[in-house]
């Protein structure tokens, strides 16, 4: 056994070596590996989080929101943390809309998770409940879910794309405009405790999130609703398989409404337009001066035999001018006239109107349609194209092409985007009309509009005629292609209209797929739908129509004598709330309304185009200016009545036909 001194020395050396080892290790950890360990410690103490950027909103042209991003929540429940499981559970189940059985199942888990997402309103009472953990997440919210849904599209469910709207745009405008809407997410660092829970302390922001831009669309909410309702009603009434409605402002190329059933087929599904395209054959003939408007061709008794096919007319005529051919939609006359064109001329005109090429509208996966170059034509191609066959177009292409006829022959780029605004509201982009090319000379476009006007006044489109406003339009009834073949007994009824016929403000294209109930002809199906939509648009206050200009093209409505109204109360469209232009100032005679009751007196004055200011109530006594004098149309005429003004009625009961205050 060693001596104590030796043992002591051994212990000393061992301790020294131990200390040396410790010091070495400390040096290794602190000096050599210090940075790595510091990183690891920081990673355990802190967490880098993504600060989502608010996804920009989509608004209609008047600023009404169509798509917004809102904070929603996933909800986690730790049953063992609940203070009073029975009442708490009842509250949680009620707010989250889960059944009692599902809640009982959740109670058996350590941590129950409900994905939702639940709105802030739904989870509000749960915030104070111990054991309930709310996980915020941004979600895309559509205030009017049915409105233009196929066009607006949706965002992906995941949080990808950096957007704060619940994900990147997955379809429709949400996808097409994703780079504008998404914004740039930020980043921050939060402190965590040992259990990984974030401390209740402010996060250290590394990069602020940048909100996405708001996009003001060209869609008019009210016109969109009118279009959707009219389409739904037509599809239901006619038992049609599908359909589309497009409304376009021909002066700017802005799409005002676009309605389709389920899919955005107005952009993606091409159809053979049939007679709708005859006007473009006429455009080519007139542009190339191959026909005069007085020239006639034989109607061939309604059946015309070509080398490899027979062309027939529904409404045989002995002889037809180009105007007649358009008016009664004569296949025979159009084939005969179009034979004067070379294939290159016929093709060039169709191409100039934008057929066979994408319109370039801001919509993903827009269909191009089909227009084969002359080198691929067969013998009957020229005749087929004159009648609107061997050509397929989308409803939006057709609307743009008719828009060119309305816009003095200039084809405009269609758009769905009116403005782009920064998160602070600054306008970064505002749409200006973008001409693509001149499709036909302005004079030819005017002649073509006259031909289309004849369709509504005396031709196949009379069902779309309005009493007070001239409409120019064309019907189209074409055999329907299903799986690459013409389906027996199936037709596509379509209608394209310019409203009003002079200085058009609206281009409407209505397409109905295979109407099975009643007539399948566009004249009886799509034309009345157009008329109904125009009437509703006229009566709607906020619709983007320039009523000041419309008032100058409605002479019959403004000058009709009061006794001709058949007792119908007129809907008086008030002073244009945002007039873009002014109408003509004509002087009119103030009618004698003495003795009439107030309603009839107001009606009589409105019929003459005057505004009315009331003095008193009851039967009319006299007016100022007096009856027989003249006043400028649109001027205010003061109507003096026998009795005093009644006190205002409680509640919002005012209507356009019930005057309680000066009608402006």
């Amino acid at each position, binding site marked *: 056994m060693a001596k104590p001194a030796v043992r002591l020395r051994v212990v000393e050396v061992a301790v020294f070596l131990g200390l040396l080892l410790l010091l070495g290790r400390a040096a290794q950890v602190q000096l050599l590996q210090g940075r790595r360990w510091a990183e690891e410690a920081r990673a355990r103490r802190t967490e880098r989080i993504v600060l989502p950027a608010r996804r920009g909103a989509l608004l209609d042209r008047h600023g009404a929101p169509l798509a917004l991003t809102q904070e929603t929540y996933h909800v986690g429940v730790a049953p063992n943390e609940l203070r009073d499981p029975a009442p708490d559970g009842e509250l949680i189940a009620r707010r989250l809309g889960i059944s009692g059985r599902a809640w009982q199942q959740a109670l058996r888990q350590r941590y129950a998770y409900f994905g939702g997402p639940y709105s*802030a309103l739904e989870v509000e009472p749960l915030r104070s409940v111990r054991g309930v953990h709310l996980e915020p997440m941004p979600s895309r919210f559509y205030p009017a879910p049915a409105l233009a849904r196929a066009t607006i599209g949706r965002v992906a469910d995941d949080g990808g794309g950096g957007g704060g709207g619940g994900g990147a745009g997955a379809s429709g405008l949400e996808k097409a405009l994703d780079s504008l809407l998404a914004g740039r997410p930020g980043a921050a660092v939060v402190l965590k405790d040992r259990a990984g829970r974030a401390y209740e302390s402010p996060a250290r922001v590394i990069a602020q999130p940048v909100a996405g831009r708001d996009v003001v669309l060209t869609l008019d909410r009210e016109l969109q609703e009118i279009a959707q309702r009219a389409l739904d009603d037509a599809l239901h009434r006619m038992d049609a398989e599908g359909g589309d409605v497009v409304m376009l402002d021909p002066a700017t190329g802005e799409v005002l409404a676009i309605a389709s059933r389920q899919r955005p087929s107005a952009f993606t599904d091409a159809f053979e337009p049939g007679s709708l395209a005859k006007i473009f054959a006429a455009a080519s003939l007139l542009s190339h001066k191959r026909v005069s408007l007085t020239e006639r061709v034989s109607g061939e008794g309604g059946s015309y035999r070509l080398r490899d096919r027979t062309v027939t007319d529904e409404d045989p005529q002995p002889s037809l001018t180009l105007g007649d051919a358009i008016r009664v939609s004569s296949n025979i006359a159009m084939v005969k006239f179009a034979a004067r064109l070379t294939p290159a001329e016929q093709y060039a005109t169709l191409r100039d109107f934008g057929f066979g090429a994408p319109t370039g509208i801001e919509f993903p996966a827009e269909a191009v349609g089909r227009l084969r170059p002359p080198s691929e034509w067969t013998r009957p191609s020229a005749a087929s194209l004159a009648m609107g066959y061997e050509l397929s177009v989308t409803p939006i292409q057709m609307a743009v092409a008719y828009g060119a006829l309305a816009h003095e022959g200039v084809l405009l780029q269609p758009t769905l985007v009116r403005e782009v605004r920064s998160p602070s509201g600054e306008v970064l982009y505002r749409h200006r009309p973008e001409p693509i090319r001149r499709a036909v000379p302005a004079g030819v476009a005017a002649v073509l509009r006259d031909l289309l006007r004849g369709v509504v006044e005396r031709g196949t489109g009379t069902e779309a005629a309005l009493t007070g406003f001239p409409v120019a339009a064309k019907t189209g009834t074409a055999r329907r292609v299903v799986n690459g073949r013409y389906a027996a007994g199936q037709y596509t009824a379509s209608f394209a209209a310019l409203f009003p016929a002079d200085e058009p403000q609206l281009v409407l294209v209505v397409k109905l797929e295979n109407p099975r109930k009643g007539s399948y002809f566009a004249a009886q199906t799509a034309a009345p739908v157009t008329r109904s939509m125009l*009437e509703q648009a006229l009566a709607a206050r906020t619709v983007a129509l320039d009523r000041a200009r419309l008032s100058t093209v409605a002479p019959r409505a403004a000058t009709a004598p009061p006794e001709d109204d058949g007792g119908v109360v007129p809907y008086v469209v008030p002073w244009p709330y945002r007039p873009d232009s002014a109408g003509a100032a004509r002087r009119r005679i103030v009618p004698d309304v003495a003795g009439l009751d107030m309603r009839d007196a107001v009606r009589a004055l409105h019929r003459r185009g005057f505004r009315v200011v009331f003095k008193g109530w009851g039967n009319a006594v006299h007016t100022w200016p007096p009856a027989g004098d003249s006043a400028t149309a649109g001027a205010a005429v003061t109507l003096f009545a026998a009795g005093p003004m009644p006190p205002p009625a409680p509640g919002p009961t005012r209507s356009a036909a019930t005057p309680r205050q000066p009608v402006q």
Partner: protein
Amino acid sequence: MRLKGRHWIAAWLVGFLAVTWVVYARQAAAIRDARELADLRTRSAGLEARRADLERRIRAAQGRAILVPRAQRQLGLHLPADSEIVLLPVPGSGSH
């Protein structure tokens, strides 16, 4: 007056306590502010949700699908034909 050792210790102690108190006060204030901020965010989100919900309901109520049938049923109104619509021209201006 020269400070003795114990005074130095006391001064250091006071200094340490003061610094510790400042740190504590700052942390406490930060946590209080964070809590307040979180509450405000929550309230703001709640109000936003309420606003959006009300807006949705107003828009739904203003929609033609609701308004037109109700106006027809309760007020006896109808959608006017174009012949029933009178547009008043703007006075005192030239033609377009």
